[in-house]
C-alpha cells in the first residue's frame, strides 16, 4: 500500500477565527506502482490533500499512512526520509528555482538527503535526461530558460531525489500543448517502466486519461469518487451535474456514442484515434447489416 488515508480531516488555522476546513473525513487507498489522477473544481481540497502525502501538512483528525510512515495529529515522525521517498512537485514549480545554475538546483535535493557530490551530480544528470533535456543544460542559469524548460528543470529537481512516489500538483498548467503531452507521457513512462507510484492533480482530465489507472474526484474537501477510468466514464454525467467536474470532450463523445449504439459494457475509447477507429468499425458493421438486411 503506497498511500492509505483513514478518515482524514484537515483545517487551516485550526485554532483561530480564520479557521476553515479543507478536508472532511477523506478515506482512500492507493496501491504501489499505480498512476492516479485527482480531479475536482478549484477549492475542492486537491492541493491540501497532496501536501499530506509527504507530511508538509499533518491531519487535524484521522490517520495518514504513506509507505511505512504514519502521520497523525500531534505526532512528530521523522519526515526527512519520507520526503526523500515521496517527491512533491508544487504548482508552478519553476517559481521555486533559486540557484544560479541548473546543476546546483538539481543537486539541492540529493545533497539535502545526504548524497555525496558525485552521486548527486549523477542523479542530476539522470533526472535531466528523464525530463528530456541533456547535460548541456547543467551550467545554464535557470532564469534564462524558456517557461517549458524551467518547468522541466523544476520537475527534474524532484526526480533527482529518486523518489518512489511522485506527486504533482497541476504539472501541465500554462504549458503549451506540445510540452503538456510530453510531460504526461514522461509521467506515464515513469510509472510503466520504472514502477513509480505517480499521483497527479489535474484540471484537464483528458491529458492524464491514457495513463491513469485510478481516478479520484474531490468536491468541497470530500472524496466523491474513486475508480477506474471506465467507471469514471460511466459516472461522468453524474459527477458533472453534482460536482461541477470538468468532463473532457472525449468522455462526452464516447458516452453519446455508447448511448446511441448500446456500447455501455465495452471498454471506453478515449483517444481521438481509438474513437475514430471504433466509429469506423461501427459504420462498417452498420453497412453489412444494412446490406445483409437489404
Amino acid at each position: 500500500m503506497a498511500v492509505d488515508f483513514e478518515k482524514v480531516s484537515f483545517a487551516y488555522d485550526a485554532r483561530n477565527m480564520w479557521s476553515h476546513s479543507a478536508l472532511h473525513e477523506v478515506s482512500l487507498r492507493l496501491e504501489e506502482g499505480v498512476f492516479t489522477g485527482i480531479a475536482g473544481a478549484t477549492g475542492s481540497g486537491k492541493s491540501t490533500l497532496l501536501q499530506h502525502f509527504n507530511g508538509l501538512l499533518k491531519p487535524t483528525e484521522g490517520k495518514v499512512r504513506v509507505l511505512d510512515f504514519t502521520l497523525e495529529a500531534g505526532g512528530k515522525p521523522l519526515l526527512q526520509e519520507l520526503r526523500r521517498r515521496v517527491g512533491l512537485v508544487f504548482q508552478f514549480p519553476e517559481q521555486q528555482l533559486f540557484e544560479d545554475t541548473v546543476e546546483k538546483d538539481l543537486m539541492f535535493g540529493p545533497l539535502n538527503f545526504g548524497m555525496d557530490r558525485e552521486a548527486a551530480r549523477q542523479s542530476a544528470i539522470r533526472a535531466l535526461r528523464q525530463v528530456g533535456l541533456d547535460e548541456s543544460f547543467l551550467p545554464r542559469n535557470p532564469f534564462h530558460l524558456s517557461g517549458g524548460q524551467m518547468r522541466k528543470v523544476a520537475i527534474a529537481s524532484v526526480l533527482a531525489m529518486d523518489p518512489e512516489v511522485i506527486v504533482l500538483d497541476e504539472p501541465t498548467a500554462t504549458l503549451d500543448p506540445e510540452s503538456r503531452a510530453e510531460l504526461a507521457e514522461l509521467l506515464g513512462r515513469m510509472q510503466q517502466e520504472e514502477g513509480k507510484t505517480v499521483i497527479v492533480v489535474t484540471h484537464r482530465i483528458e491529458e492524464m486519461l491514457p495513463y491513469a489507472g485510478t481516478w479520484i474526484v474531490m468536491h468541497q474537501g470530500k472524496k466523491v469518487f474513486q475508480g477506474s477510468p471506465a467507471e469514471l466514464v460511466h459516472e461522468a454525467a453524474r459527477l458533472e451535474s453534482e460536482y461541477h467536474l470538468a468532463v473532457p470532450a472525449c468522455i462526452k463523445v464516447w458516452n453519446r456514442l455508447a448511448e446511441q449504439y448500446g456500447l455501455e459494457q465495452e471498454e471506453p475509447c478515449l483517444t481521438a484515434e481509438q474513437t475514430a477507429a471504433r466509429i469506423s468499425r461501427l459504420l462498417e458493421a452498420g453497412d453489412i447489416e444494412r446490406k445483409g438486411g437489404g
Partner: protein
Amino acid sequence: MRNRLLFGRSIETGSWIHPIDPRAKLTGMVLYLAALLLVDSWIPLLAAAIFSLIYMKMTLIPLKYYAKAAKPLWVLMVFIFVVQTLTVDEGRLLLEIGNVTVYAGGLSRGLISASRMLLLVSFTAMLTFTTTPGLLNQGLGGVLAPLKKIGVSADRLTLMMGIALRFIPTILDETHKILKAQAARGADLKELPWLEKGKLLVSLLVPVTVSAFRRAEELVLSMEARGFIIGEPRSEYHKLVWSTKATGFVLSFVVLIAIVLVLKLVLT
C-alpha cells in the same frame, strides 16, 4: 508564519464600530495617543484602561487578539520599563545592588510607561481589526488630503500604502509556498540548525524578489492598460460617509482626554 501574522488583517464581527468612517477612526486613534501621552499616574491610567477595555469589548473581537497584536512589541515594553525604573530616582529606595538603585517612584513610573505602551499598541490594533485595508487606505487619503496645499501628494502616498498593504499577504503566501517546496526537497526550515536556517532564508530571497518584480511589472501594465494616471481626479468605489456614530466616536476620545486632564488636575 502566516498564522501568526495579525497585522493588516481585519476581523469581521458586525459590531457598530466596524462600519464607522475610517477617517473618524484615524482621528480617534490620534486623540487616543494624545490622551495616553497626558497619562502620568495610576488613576488616569486606570481610567484610560477601562475606556480601552470597553471599546475593545464593543468590537466583539476576543481580547486575546488584541493581546496577540501587542505581543511582538514586548521587548520594547520591557526596555521602557527597565530604563524608567533605573533612571527615575524618586520616593523610597527599594533596592540597591552596587551602582544600580531602584526607587519606588521609578518602579511606578516604569510600570505606568510600559502599561501605556501596551494600551497604545493593543488598542490601536482596533483600527486594522475593524477596517479593511482598502477602506483604511481611503480614510488615510481623506485625512491627508489637506496636505496637498503644502505640496505633498496624498494620492501618491495612499497608492503606495495601498499597494504595499495589498501585497504583504501575497508575498508572504508566496514565501510560504517556496519554503514548503524547499521542505519537500529535504530542507525543512523547522528542523535545520541555525546556520543552515540562515542560508536557506538567504536563498529564499532570490525567488521571492524575482516574483515580486514580476508582479510589480504586471501590476504597472495592468493599471496603465485600464487608464490609470496618478494624480488625476478619480471617482471612488466606496464613498466615505460620516455618520452621527462617527461624530460620537471621535467625541468619546475628546471626553477621554477631558477625563484624563480633570483627574490630573484633581490629583495634584
